[in-house]
């Protein structure tokens, strides 16, 4: 046991800093903290409308391109998809009064406009991931005409299902008080995520390091994940407050009571085809929170895809890597205009 530990420590010292998000991309649009990236193609184009990925604000989007052999984006590129990625950046004090509607109707909306303009297209494919999926649903409900197909991945829709621990914890938190003294730190969010499964995430995971026996590749994977997990941006105070109150505490999205930009956000307004991908063992967004989407969207062409992985496994596990990019591309090709 001691030998294993020493071997792991030696290997960790040699690894140093790890690289993430290495696929070739160009920043095509930037505004305030946000950046819109376009990835360089890796295969003959599938001639699909461009795919805009809207990631969550609470984590960094390089999880979708963590390393060459664990990259949802790379797999999509190999399948000929033209991929754009919206990176929300690291909000700071200057963003504390920015409302949620600015992120959804403003920044996301302008990125959609930009992609459409750059491709001279009428509509694009929108892929929303986790919180980014919820935001994408709101946007698609308000601006359905620019969206050819909508894909949500591990995205919460009904925030008050019994399995949703995060939501239970949020119910009695005074978010006005929490955000009164500024942005919500990424460290606090990390603490909350760790508290969802404290024994596995703060103990077992590190004990398992010993079992890697100094395997450099495995340790590098571990360190990339570790970097991503704790690289959580601070959350802009007002947008965070609104998200927690409106979604977690009041469940406005499924109740049809959400107002953004002076307009009512009605999921029934989403008429474009929807593919809802969720993880069977998701401890952050339980399947019940995602599955609810089917009962609320207004489209006839709705499909749900369950993958037998956890929340993070959806981005990096071998099982998801083999099924998800291909399922997305196949689904999009079937709906090719």
């Amino acid at each position: 046991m001691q030998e294993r530990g020493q071997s792991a420590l030696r290997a960790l010292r040699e690894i140093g800093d790890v690289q993430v998000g290495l696929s070739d991309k160009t920043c095509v649009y930037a505004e305030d903290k946000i950046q819109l990236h376009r990835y360089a193609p890796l295969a003959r184009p599938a001639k699909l409308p461009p795919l805009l990925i809207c990631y969550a604000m609470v984590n960094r989007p390089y999880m979708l391109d963590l390393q060459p052999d664990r990259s949802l984006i790379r797999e999509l590129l190999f399948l000929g998809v033209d991929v754009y990625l919206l990176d929300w950046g690291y909000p700071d004090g200057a963003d504390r009064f920015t409302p949620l509607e600015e992120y959804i109707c403003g920044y996301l909306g302008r990125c959609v406009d930009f992609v459409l303009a750059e491709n001279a297209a009428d509509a694009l494919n929108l892929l929303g991931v986790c919180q980014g999926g919820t935001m994408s649903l709101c946007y698609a409900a308000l601006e359905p005409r620019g969206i050819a197909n909508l894909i949500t991945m591990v995205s919460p829709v009904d925030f008050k299902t019994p399995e949703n621990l995060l939501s239970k914890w949020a119910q009695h938190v005074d978010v006005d008080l929490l955000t009164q003294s500024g942005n919500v730190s990424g460290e606090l969010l990390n603490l909350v995520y760790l508290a969802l499964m404290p024994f596995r995430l703060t103990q077992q995971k590190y004990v398992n390091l010993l079992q890697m026996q100094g395997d450099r590749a495995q340790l590098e994977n571990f360190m990339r994940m570790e970097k991503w997990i704790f690289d959580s941006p601070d959350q802009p105070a007002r947008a965070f407050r609104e998200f927690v109150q409106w979604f977690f505490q009041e469940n406005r999205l499924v109740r049809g009571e959400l107002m953004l930009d002076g307009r009512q956000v009605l999921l029934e307004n989403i008429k474009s085809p929807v593919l809802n991908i969720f993880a069977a063992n998701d401890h952050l967004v339980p399947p019940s929170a995602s599955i609810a989407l089917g009962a609320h969207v207004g489209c006839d062409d709705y499909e749900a895809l369950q993958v037998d992985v956890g929340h993070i496994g959806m981005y990096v596990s071998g099982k998801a890597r083999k099924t998800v990019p291909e399922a997305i591309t196949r689904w999009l090709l079937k709906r090719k205009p």
Partner: protein
Amino acid sequence: MTDPDTTQPRTLPFLKAWDNYVAASQILFERLSDGSAAHAGGPMPLSFIGPWKDFAASLGMRSDFPGGEHFKPEDLFGSHLPAFGYSREYQEIGRRMQDLAAQFQRRCAEFAQQGVDIGQSALQAIQKRSSGDPTMLCSPAALYDAWIDGAEEAYARAAHSEPFVRLLADLCNILSAFKIERGKLLEALARHLDWPSRAEVDSLHRQVRVLTAAAKPAAPAKPAAATKPAAATKPAAATKAAAAARKARPAILKARKRAGK
């Protein structure tokens, strides 16, 4: 007013207490006015606080004032004495912070107790499992995994319960309130040192937000044609919009570079 037995004037309790208080205060003032005694050091005679307490009690006021010879300056922040005097505002903040810290400690103790209960439940679960599977105890790795599984199961049961949810929210709310009070002190410090304060920066951010929102419609990266589906259906208009966007792109990137991003 006289005593019916002695016909002597009766000393009312509050007058007696007042006399004692004045006498004690006199000693204090004498000591303070005597420069040599003051320079000689030694503790200030605070014996006047006891008589003051008696006097206040005789008037029906609270007698649980934390005074007397054991008086400590931090007692000023105690919950019994109202804040007063030149530093009144800071006393209030200090007292609130102290109250919040005490509340936090109490809730933390309850949280720790929850942790102990969860640990015990986990141990019971392991015992139950190991009695059914004796081979589990032969391997440290298997035992450790069983411990983690049991602990997570016990934790999940507790974490979903209403008392746990309330406790966690309380801890968060108390810390948020503490942070706000601490912010007030830092705000005052910044003012005294002539540093930009949070309130000042917030005010500027608000102004920037208003100005930015006013300027947004003119943003170069939002070609008008692209936002209008009717126009976008016309290939010429769409191509024009795409060309405009491509033209705008270097300007945006240039602006980013200027901003040091």
